């Protein structure tokens, strides 16, 4: 039976693993940015997340997803490109991104 010597069909990886991010001990006093893909009722879900988090950490400050724009919509590229500047401007310590689905 003939034997075939074959190569793999995948592409070479171009990306590099980013460094591990250290986390906060508490969320109190932190600023959390909200990113939305405008799916699954984000106004309501972020409102409920804020309420639930504030019960636990009353001094969290939230930056609404409306400040960043819709990462799913037709302006996706612009919205994503503007993120680093906006996250810095709003002094966000953390981001909650939702709702992936």
């Amino acid at each position: 039976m003939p034997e075939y010597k074959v190569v793999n069909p995948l592409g070479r990886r171009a990306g590099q693993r980013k460094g591990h991010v250290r986390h906060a001990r508490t969320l109190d006093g932190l600023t959390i940015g909200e990113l939305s893909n405008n799916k699954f009722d984000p106004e309501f879900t972020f409102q409920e997340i804020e309420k639930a988090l504030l019960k636990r950490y009353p001094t969290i400050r939230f930056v609404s997803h409306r400040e960043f724009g819709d990462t799913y919509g037709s302006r996706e590229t612009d919205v994503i490109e503007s993120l680093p500047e906006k996250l810095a401007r709003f002094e966000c310590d953390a981001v909650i991104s939702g709702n992936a689905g």
Partner: protein
Amino acid sequence: MSVTIAIGEGFTRSVKAIGAQAGLDLKVATYPGVISTHERETVARNIENVLVEQIVRHLTSDEAPEQAIAQGSSSADRDIVFAGTFEAVNQHFYDRGWTDGLPVVPPTVEKIEAFLRFTDRSPDEVLGVMHPSLAQATIWNVAVNGVMAGCRPEYMPILVAIAEVMADPRYGLKHGGSTPGWEAMIILNGPIRDQLRFDCKQGLQRPGNQANTSVGRFYRLFARNVPRFLPGSTDMATFGQMFRGVVAENEEACAEFGWAPLHVARGYEPDDNVVTITSARTGSDPFTTAGESPERHLEMIVDWARRMIEPYQSSRGYVESHVLVLTPVIVSLLARAGYSKADLAEHIKKHATVTARYYEWHMMLGDHHTPGTTLAGLVEQGSLPREWHLSDDPDRLVPLMLPQTDWLIVVAGDPLRNRSCIYRQNFKQGYATSKKIQLPKKWGALLSS
């Protein structure tokens, strides 16, 4: 630091796989169940009782990041990764998720080199970095996957153009693992159609003709092996579908009736060879239209456009590029009445209307908007043009499609059958993108040899 909210276990797998491939320390909080099927009371309870604890844990604990799933190749292009019989090679590839489930032609260096003879470009040339794998699309891996798909070496220039579309950010392949599970619609124009024996007539998309079939298969294999869209992780297709055979346009019929072939309508020269790819979530019924009056045909085409396009698409600002495939017998009737392709596209957009009452009812049914959203509100905030709210009459007619919507009208299929078909595109995911096919300098000599 960040946490992503994923809906259910499936999306959690997907987010983790994509994050890991991108090398991101991505933490995922999983919403339990299918949020779209939950009323607000249930959503609030799940956020309070289940989701927020996960969000807090991910933001405050110093957990080690998950290990990346190595989806790219770590071997050099020409490294032999396996040797064995046809069956053993296929089993090896299948076990690693490198096939589409059908037997593949073993990609030996000799076969790959036969493909490379049909391009003047370097095998190392990088066509782009593809998401979600962040792997490079190269001339080499185009050839490898072309071999595997059962293509002939002379198809190589077309395969390269297809990969160039896939690597073009405007095409939006990075969203190719979305839940509609769309598949590419590859449209071919130019003299290469006959040189490589692509079929443009009766049954052109049925498996059987090597050119149409194997090039369609190539797209899906390449999508699987280079960007690495894998069902169960990075490919979240709800159902999924088979690859589509290439649609080559019947340019002779276009010429006979004075219609521009698709590539000319998109700005290319008639003698250019061009690949145009657009996503298609699904095709319509191959619907029948009848009569000698063009109006009867147009009415039915518009009616099918109305059936295929949903109100939520324009309500969310989707600019799309749908496809209408017409057979020559229908084109003859429309052309005789003075319609060009552009006229037809405008006619569809103008006449595919629905009542405002239906539009609002439908756009709210599928969880596409915050409760309470209205057409008046969308117009007021600038999300829709004013044509969507010229009055408060709920029975007024409003357009289904935004004015920028593109219609790719293609002439193909059984020349003497009065059926047409509409393919619904998927927003920025697989937006219609064209590439000119670059032929090697010695194309003629290579073909004759």
